[in-house]
């Protein structure tokens, strides 16, 4: 467990350095192409890199919570959830995380934050309705283990960095398509606008290549073993494996489709969410699966 925490810290530092270098490069590219480089380019590079790294460290949890549509709930609104979270925080010997509910019907949950002193646990409305108390304790025990092991920091940083890469690549490609490339066919006097659209296109392509790489990074940093470990440790907290087993069985039998699901945050959830059919789907999504099959997780818990 302590090796896991140390490994997580190392990976987080590495990831932040990588992210700083990448964003620095992008910032420099923007500065170089639009402002002919020099000091402004450097300012852009440093500014973007700082914003992303500090942002993902300090506000990553808020960004993740907002992007999933999670809402903070009071003790009066959800007494059972608050009691269970507080109980498992006591069992783990950490301060009580903040409690959020995501308005989704699929049963799921995630934890985010940067350390046990700044952590949040979010569960979906569907999970609250479907699970009885011991099952809820099993799920929250799993999430509390992610808080204890600092999985939440690396998970949140990954989510923010990948989210930023996806967002930037979409901005660049769409700007080129609608603003630059589309108009150019009607406008023969290309000139500066033509060069600009080409540049935007190039940057967009560069980021499109980067995004699957970021996906690979998720795979590397958020291994399947981590989920097995959190299952085992969560059960160590509740001392009651049947609770989590029963919760996982209910989750595997329920629909997984979630509106809030996206590539940037998929790895954070208790069980990998899939998209609502008909929603905007991405080919990238099929490239990687972040979670081990739920039946394997149940089997391992039964063997404990």
């Amino acid at each position, binding site marked *: 467990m302590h090796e896991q925490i140390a490994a997580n810290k190392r990976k987080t530092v590495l990831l932040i350095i990588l992210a700083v270098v990448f964003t620095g490069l992008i910032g420099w590219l923007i500065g170089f192409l639009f402002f002919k480089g020099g000091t402004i380019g450097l300012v852009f590079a440093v500014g973007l890199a700082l914003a992303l790294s500090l942002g993902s460290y300090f506000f990553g949890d808020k960004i993740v919570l907002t992007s999933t549509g999670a809402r903070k709930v009071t003790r009066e609104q959800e*007494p*059972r959830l*608050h*009691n*269970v979270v*507080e*109980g*498992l925080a*006591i*069992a*783990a*010997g950490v301060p009580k995380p903040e409690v959020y509910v995501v308005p989704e019907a699929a049963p799921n949950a995630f934890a985010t934050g940067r350390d046990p002193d700044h952590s949040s646990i979010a569960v979906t409305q569907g999970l609250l309705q479907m699970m009885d*108390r*011991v099952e809820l*304790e099993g799920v929250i025990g799993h999430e509390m283990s992610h808080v204890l092991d600092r999985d939440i920091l690396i998970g949140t940083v990954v989510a923010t960095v990948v989210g930023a890469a996806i967002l930037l690549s979409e901005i660049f490609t769409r700007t080129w398509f609608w603003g630059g490339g589309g108009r150019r066919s009607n406008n023969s006097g290309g000139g500066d606008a033509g060069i600009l659209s080409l540049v935007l296109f190039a940057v967009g392509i560069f980021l499109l290549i980067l995004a699957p790489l970021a996906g690979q990074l998720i795979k590397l940093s958020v291994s399947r073993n981590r989920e097995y470990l959190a299952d*085992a440790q969560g*059960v*160590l*907290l509740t*001392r*009651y*494996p*049947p609770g989590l087993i029963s919760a996982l069985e209910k989750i595997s039998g329920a629909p997984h489709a979630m509106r809030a699901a996206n590539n940037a945050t998929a790895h954070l959830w208790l069980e990998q969410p899939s998209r609502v059919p008909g929603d905007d789907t991405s080919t990238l999504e099929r490239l990687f699966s972040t979670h081990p099959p739920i039946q394997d997780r149940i089997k391992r818990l039964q063997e*404990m």
Partner: protein
Amino acid sequence: MGVAGWVVIAVVALLVLWTIWAFNRLVKYRNRADEGWAQIDVQLRRRYDLIPNLVKTVEGYAAHERETFEEVTAARSRAESAQGVAGQAHAENAVSTGLRQLLAVAENYPDLKANANFLALQEELTGTESKIAYARQYYNDQVRLLNTAIQSFPSSVLANMFHFSPREFFDIEDAVRAPVQVDFEGQ
């Protein structure tokens, strides 16, 4: 300085480093055990606070079950004045038994079971019971670590020197869930 001199210096340095490490570990376990005990205390007090409210609510529907009310109230006041870890644990068992009887009484009154105030109190009580169980689990885990460090050689020498004393386990029966036998040692 000869080789022997360096060896002596190295051994002394290692000894000093080990002493610092072992001492800090003892302090850490002791503080965590204290924290765990404080948390148990908080949750037990929370339960004491809930009992009069619960009794009052149930009384409104089942006034003639006086014996049960008196029993749980008496157990509560005995627990509040209990001394020592073992004495406290013993007194809390009586409170748990009394509360279980009180809730069993409530089962016979459908109107009471539908009362919003009662349902809220029941949730608070269940939540508090499981927090007591979790706090006890944490405390006992930390006491086990502390006691092992105090009793095993060579840290026992250090523990003796600085007067670290073993703590008592907090043993109460688990009212929330049936105990489950799971072997976690293999991990």
